[in-house]
């Protein structure tokens, strides 16, 4: 397309400069704060301090756990929903996809506040549980890990479904019938045919959901509050209240590492399956 590499580079230069100036440089400055010692040298003591604190350990593990749990559950629900949607007539497919996307157009603040009403002691969930005799006294769901899990799942499930829909649509139409004809059961069809062919979508969806869970602020802030801190809410607390920018930059670094790690891990899982498949 281009005469030479120089031309292509010249065209990419403005965007690259912009990204470097407003993103890369500030991020490097921010992250380097976490490695500065008060004497002016370099140190990792901010990190060892961070992880030696038991609250920070709890928050880190909780963030990891909830992020992973939401990603896995949204993948399971996402595959089912995406299958159902892909198998619809084109018109209905468009409408259903629209419905999936719809929540993304509503402010997360409004959505999250709605959960307070729904999950409250006098909310519809508790009313239903009491009417069905599941519990006598209303359950305390708000301000717990369960509440954050529900809120995050609802928030990010659409991203997983959309990624999987486009992956499933790109899959050859006769792949599943062919597998069935060759005697595969439904589990084998999914595991050996669908999953390998849609892994790109799963990796993209999984990364979006996991990093979304790590970096979501409003949902854990409203549904968990300071009682159930996540890394993002802890980060906010460190900056806005404690004015502890070193600790904040440590958390920011951890979040970035976790996001990259999740992406690499998901890709690994996908390629590992690939290799298995291509083995003679």
């Amino acid at each position: 397309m281009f005469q030479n590499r120089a031309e292509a580079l010249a065209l990419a230069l403005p965007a690259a400069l912009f990204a470097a100036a407003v993103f890369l440089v500030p991020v490097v400055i921010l992250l380097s704060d976490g490695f500065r010692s008060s004497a002016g040298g370099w140190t990792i003591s901010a990190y060892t301090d961070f992880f030696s604190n038991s609250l920070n350990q709890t928050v880190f593990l909780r963030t990891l756990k909830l992020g992973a749990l939401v990603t896995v559950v949204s993948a399971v629900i996402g595959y089912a929903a995406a299958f159902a949607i892909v198998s619809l007539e084109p018109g209905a497919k468009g409408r259903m996809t629209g419905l999936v996307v719809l929540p993304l157009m509503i402010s997360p603040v409004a959505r999250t506040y709605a959960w307070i009403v729904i999950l409250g002691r006098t909310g519809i969930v508790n009313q239903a549980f009491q009417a069905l005799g599941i519990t006598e006294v209303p359950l305390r769901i708000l301000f717990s890990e369960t509440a954050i899990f529900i809120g995050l799942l609802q928030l990010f499930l659409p991203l997983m479904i959309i990624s999987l829909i486009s992956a499933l649509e790109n899959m050859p139409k006769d792949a599943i019938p062919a597998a069935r004809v060759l005697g595969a059961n439904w589990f084998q069809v999914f595991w050996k045919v669908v999953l390998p062919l849609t892994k790109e979508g799963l990796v993209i969806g999984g990364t979006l959901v996991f990093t979304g869970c790590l970096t979501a602020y409003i949902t854990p802030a409203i549904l968990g509050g300071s009682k159930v801190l996540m890394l993002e809410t802890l980060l906010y607390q460190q900056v806005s209240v404690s004015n502890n920018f070193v600790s904040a930059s440590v958390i920011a670094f951890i979040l970035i590492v976790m996001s990259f790690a999740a992406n690499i891990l998901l890709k690994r899982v996908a390629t590992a399956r690939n290799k298995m498949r291509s083995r003679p």
Partner: protein
Amino acid sequence: MKKVIFASGAVLMLATGAAQAQEKTLTISVYALAQDEYKQIIYDPFEKVCGCKLVVETGNSVERIAKMEANKANPVVDMAVVSMADALAASRAGLIDKVDTSKLSNFDKLYDIAKDPNKDGMSVGYTFYATSIAYRSDKMKIESWADLLKPEYASHIAWPNVTTNQGPPALYMLGQALGKDTPDLKAAIAAVGEKKDEIVTFYEKSSQLVQLMQQEEIWAAPIGRFTWAPFTKLGMPIAWATPKEGQTGGMNVMVVTKGSKNRDLALQFMDFWLSADVQTKVAEKMIDSPANKEVKLSEAAANNLTYGEETAKSLKLIPSAVALDNRAGWIKSWNEAVGQ
């Protein structure tokens, strides 16, 4: 001869006055809230009175003090409004000067609590608020701060997070109620920590409480008086407690920057802000409770704000030095006892 001197003096004053009117600029640093009302009630009228230009910098106090510190050698801001504790921090950092209260005609009209909050002559209070407990009077009886932690109540209350403005004062009063009021708030934090699983939430935004109260998720929470109004509109039996240990609260103060070239103008502005007229107007907009005791408020405003001699006298505020020296420690012990 006298006439000539007088006339030339007058001409000189007029001339310098006119010259100053063009040059005089007062830079103030304030909280970012209610700026439209402030402009209408304070800034614009003051510009007319002083014939000067007012430059307003806004932000939270952490940002603004950091900025003052950065410009220490060559101050940009002439006067600032900050919290009581931040005023002491600014004083310790050598950023502010003593306030020459002899130049404030309204100084004597202030409630005693506002006259010299940090007892160092470095600040003057312009507004304060009470912090007490809003509670469902049909479900519970609150006579002491410690009542909130009673077994039958604890699972129906929200407690302010230590990081909010209401957090430390509430713990301070709880400590008094428990008879263990050390500056590190250890006993109070431990008491809250013991009930952490029962307490509904440790709130960070008081706006959230109205919804929780409406949904009967909570029956009570320590709040600042300035957030009281919405609770009275819920149509529920919600009362403002007057615990036997008293009410607590907070105060915002005015300070003058060390090295400011517009000291007199800054004092003139402070005096204007402290006048009964301005304080009444700001109070009637339900923004700041008046520190000027000559202010007479309508019933609606009085009910929503912290108002009156008795209330002002009953407030037990955390001494700024205690807050400054212990803030980091409070957050640490809180995170250990409550945060997980």
